[in-house]
Every structure is written in C-alpha cells, then in structure tokens.
C-alpha cells in the first residue's frame, strides 16, 4: 500500500515537474475552474429549486387552500 502511494506520488511528480513545471499551472487553473464551476452549479440548482417552489406557491394560491384538498 505504502509502495503504491509512493509510486503514485513519484509518477505525479514526474508529470508535474516536466515541461518546466507548466503542469503545476494547469493544476492550479483546474482547481479554480472546478471550484468555481461546482459553486456555480450548486447555486443554479438552488435557484431552480426556489423557482419551482415559487411557481408552486403561486399556483396553489389561486386554487383552494391545501388543508381543504381531498387527499
């Protein structure tokens, strides 16, 4: 297990240190990209959920109250 971790680390280092460490910059850019995209998607999901809840509350307001609805 330890050997595998070391081997992985060495392989990663080999890639990252090649091309005058350009891949380090790529890694940094990808971290930021992934982080911002993840945040944006979470926000969009939240907005979508709120929009549908809003539409629901608008449509239920025009109908009869929920407490009187037949189950």
């Amino acid at each position, binding site marked *: 297990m330890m050997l595998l971790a070391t081997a992985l*680390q060495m392989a990663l*280092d080999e890639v*990252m*240190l090649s*091309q*005058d*460490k*350009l891949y*380090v*910059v790529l*890694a*940094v*850019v990808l*971290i*930021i990209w992934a*982080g*911002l995209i993840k*945040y*944006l998607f979470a*926000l969009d999901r*939240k*907005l979508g959920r*709120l*929009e549908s*809840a*809003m539409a629901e*509350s608008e449509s239920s*307001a025009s109908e009869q109250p929920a407490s009187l609805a037949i189950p």
Partner: protein
Amino acid sequence: MTLPREHPVARSFIDTHYRQIRLLIVLWMTAVLLGAFSFGGHWLNIPRISILEHTARNLYFHVPMWFTMMALTVVSAWHSMRCLRSGDAVRDIRARSAAQVAVVFGLLGLLTGSVWAHYTWYEGTSIWWNFDPKQTMATVQVLIYGAYFALRSALDDSAKRARISAVYNVFAFATVPFLLYVLPRQMESLHPGAEGNPAFSEITHPLMRLVFYPAVIGFIGVGWLLYHQRVRARKLEQQLENRQYTPL
C-alpha cells in the same frame, strides 16, 4: 426589522444588464487566460527563473483569489455596518452572501497555494503543507469567516441573527489586514514580502503586471457575479418563506 420587499418593477441597472455584464466578465477572463499562457516569441512571454520556472504564471491565478476574497470581505463588512444602522434585512442578505463567496475564494487560494508550494518550495519532498506563516494566517482567516456561519446557524430569530452576526462580521473584517498582511510580513516566511524577502514590486517582471492586474479585476468580476446570484437566490428564498408563513 423590515422584510425584503417583493419588487419586480423597481429593477436596478445591474439587474437589467446582468447578462451584458456577465458576457463582459467572461470575455475579459478569456483574454486573461490567453495572456497567462503566452509562449515562444510572443510579446507577453515572461522570463524564466529557476525553481519557479513556468509556475511563475500562478501569480495570475493564486494571488487574485486573495484579492477577490479581500474585496468580498470589504463588501460583506460594509453591508453589515449598514445593516446595524438601518436594520434592513436585505443588508443582512448581502453581508452573508459576500462572506460566503469570500470563503469559496479563500479555500481556492489555500488549495492552489498548497499545490504551488509543493512543486517549488518543497520540491523533492513529500510536503504539501508546512505552516508557512501566511498559509497559517490565511487558514485562520478562513476559519474566522467559517465561525461567522456557525454563529448565524445558532441564532433562530432573524432580526437578532442579523444584528449579532453583523457585529461579529465587522470584527472579523478588522482582522483581515493583520492576518493577511501585517503578521505574515513580520515573520519568517517563504512568501514574497516577508522578512528579508523581496516584495512583489522588486521580483516581478514588469511584463507580468500586464496580465496580473487584469486577472485581479477579472476574478473580482467573477466573484461579483457569484455574489450577485447568491443574493438573488437568498432574496427569493426569503420571499418564499414569507409567503408560506403569511396567510394569502
């Protein structure tokens, strides 16, 4: 405490031009990325320094994370102060949203810094984190803002929550210049500008400013976009809560 009004009619310039502003920021950031990866005979090709090599380009990405975080903490503290003065619930929403996005940028700054350090300062070792004063202080800073959200979630009454967390937030902001600037510069650190280390202006090639400053502006723009949408989502959420609790 006044509740946020439902005002679909009164929309500000920013609300009506959101898409244009977003497009501008996206195009701006695209230009920054192109500038950041200029090679060969290109006029933006930057000089190479040993150990740093191409990672010098991380200046365009890692450092703006902190600038954006600081800009958002300014926004957050400003709205907290306005909230204390007026008791307007919208100010509380703005303060909270700005702090949230600030933490996202702070975490990205920590992560990118750790990767950068591993392949430069700690090259040849398996170290990713070595408690460099600036790293430590930045972590403390992010945790201080984390505590802001812990405090918020502990308070149920919205008026009380807005007031108490606004007071905390103003104090949290007061620590920003010390934790991110003053203290790390006093201690032995590998970061530029620390004791004995040359500061940004002395070691950075003038050419890099041509990409660095636009990158800072661009990332602050991206932070603003996320903040703006966060505020919209939270306002909508509160409108919905008000509807559910008031008889229609």
